[in-house]
């Protein structure tokens, strides 16, 4: 029997809305869970997306992708890629695996929200596959690092991080809980799939896979590429939704969620991806700076996507672009200086070669962040290592939960963005984070940053030991300099040579 071509039946088969008889429409699709914004069921049926994948195709393709990722891993197991990798690249892996796998399960919940409560049949169909995608991503990114645990205990954080109060995980959870698991289907589609995935992860995973290939980590590169191809499909869920919302007079609501989540995603990426691209990846293997990457892929291309869909550039766009000059450097500096409270060994990334690269990519770096690294380097050269550790905590932003940091040195630009709300003082790193809070203050007001928890007495004893214990950092997991300070000796040798 001849089979119909896919396009002859796909749209009809996907049209699965019906008129509920035994319950009301709002009982079937509770507005809070659907994010329906008062748009009636019939209006959602024009939702369309470009992939039009069928479930049998999905299963076939996913099976092939999984087989590819696992077979490359198996084939390379004896090649000692990890052991031979630069400690900077090892730090990229540890940071990535600690930050993301458990969040993939949250993303699966987010896709499930759309699969059940989305009012557009096409969205429910796409999100069903997206839900399975995210489970696959969690499992891949838990299994791969699991095999590295015997080699390095810090990889245990891939599985353990989600259950801890580690400051960086509190930051990631604050964003992901907000974006993925506590909003209606429409807000999830706008925030997760359109702002976060289209804007950030889809592109970032492309860059990460390229970097991994450059350093020779084919196993990781292959796995990340395998994930990215899923992302590029299910990231398409949000775009068609924007069209429906705009057609039904909901541009303001769509713009607000998109603006909030782009800002929030940007802050997290400045820490995770920024430091990895500009410092962790060995300088010889860096394809482009974080700023170049952001300008090309996010600022330029994503901006076009926003405008093409009928949305506007976010109000803070110029500020975001200006922040590209310093955000990754400030986060990296915080990671390194507070290295005992990281689950990875943080590279300094300031050899003479690194510094030349940083100055070339970020003109003025030497006069700003370079001055701070000068003090740190001199302390290490003079045997004053104790002066390279902190004795207090950095202030954390009450929205992104990251350190409130900016440009040091003569052009000092650090500042607090304070806000009083119902008798409590909040501190933000930026106008953008403060604005996000002010959009929905009751949603965020109850959360305590790690600093708030410290001051409230949750961390006992109130010292480094108490902090490590609170954050579940066990002996053998606590971070230090990734290269065991070998970079200091290269600088010492260069100075001695110059003096001679």
């Amino acid at each position, binding site marked *: 029997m001849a089979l119909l071509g896919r396009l002859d039946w796909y749209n009809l088969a996907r049209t699965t809305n019906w008129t509920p008889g035994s319950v009301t429409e709002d009982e079937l699709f509770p507005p809070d869970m659907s994010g329906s914004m008062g748009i009636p069921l019939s209006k959602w049926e024009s939702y369309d997306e470009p992939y039009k994948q069928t479930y049998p195709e999905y299963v076939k393709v996913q099976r092939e992708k999984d087989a590819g990722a696992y077979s490359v891993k198996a084939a390379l197991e004896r090649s000692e890629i990890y052991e031979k990798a630069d400690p900077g690249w090892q730090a990229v892996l540890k940071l990535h695996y600690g930050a993301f796998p458990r969040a993939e399960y949250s993303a699966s919940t987010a896709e499930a929200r759309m699969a059940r409560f989305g009012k557009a049949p096409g969205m429910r169909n796409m999100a069903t596959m997206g839900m399975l995608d995210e489970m696959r991503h969690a499992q891949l990114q838990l299994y791969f690092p699991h095999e590295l645990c015997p080699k390095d205990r810090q990889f245990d954080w891939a599985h353990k991080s989600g259950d801890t109060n580690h400051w960086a995980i509190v930051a990631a959870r604050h964003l992901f809980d907000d974006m993925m698991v506590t909003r209606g289907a429409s807000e999830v589609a706008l925030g997760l799939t359109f702002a976060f995935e289209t804007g950030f992860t889809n592109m970032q995973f492309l860059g990460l896979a390229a970097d991994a290939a450059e350093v020779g980590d084919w196993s990781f590169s292959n796995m990340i590429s395998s994930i990215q191809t899923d992302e590029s499909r299910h990231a398409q869920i949000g775009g068609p939704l924007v069209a429906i919302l705009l057609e039904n007079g909901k541009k303001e609501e769509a713009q607000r969620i998109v603006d909030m989540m782009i800002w929030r995603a940007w802050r997290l990426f400045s820490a995770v991806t920024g430091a990895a691209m500009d410092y962790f990846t060995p300088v010889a293997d860096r394809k482009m700076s974080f700023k170049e990457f952001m300008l090309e892929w996010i600022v330029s291309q994503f901006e076009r996507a926003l405008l093409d869909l009928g949305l506007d550039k976010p109000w803070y766009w110029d500020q975001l672009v200006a922040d590209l000059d310093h955000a990754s450097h*400030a986060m990296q500096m915080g990671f390194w200086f507070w290295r005992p409270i990281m689950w990875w060994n943080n590279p300094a990334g300031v050899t003479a070669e690194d510094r030349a690269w940083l100055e070339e990519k970020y003109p003025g770096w030497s006069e700003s962040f370079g001055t701070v690294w000068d*003090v740190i380097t001199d302390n290490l050269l003079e045997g004053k290592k104790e002066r390279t550790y902190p004795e207090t905590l950095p202030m954390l932003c009450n929205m992104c939960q990251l350190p409130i940091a900016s440009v040091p040195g003569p052009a000092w630009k650090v*500042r607090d963005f304070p806000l009083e709300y119902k008798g409590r003082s909040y501190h933000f790193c930026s106008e953008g984070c403060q604005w996000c809070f002010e959009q929905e203050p009751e949603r965020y007001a109850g959360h305590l940053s790690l600093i708030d928890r410290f001051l409230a007495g949750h961390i006992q004893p109130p010292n480094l030991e108490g902090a490590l214990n609170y954050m579940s950092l066990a002996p053998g997991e606590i971070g230090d300099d990734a290269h065991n300070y070998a970079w200091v000796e290269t600088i010492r040798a260069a100075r001695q040579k110059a003096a001679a």
Partner: protein
Amino acid sequence: MAAFPLTSNFQGDFVLQLLPVDTENTMDEVAAAAAHHSVGRRVPARPGHTLRVRRQGASELMSRTLKVSESGLKPMECIEVIWE
């Protein structure tokens, strides 16, 4: 006497830091406490200069002998510690 947390924004440093002080501390003592966490760690010392305290964004410096309890500062308020 009571513990009093402030937020230190030290001139030339890259990050705000939690600064535990005491209500009886003078602004000179507050500046010295802030310097402990920044100078010689990430900010080079400036011999011959004095450290002064002001509220974030203010142009007026606080008196060097003013006590925290007399300053009107709120817990965790951000102070700027600058070289003079």
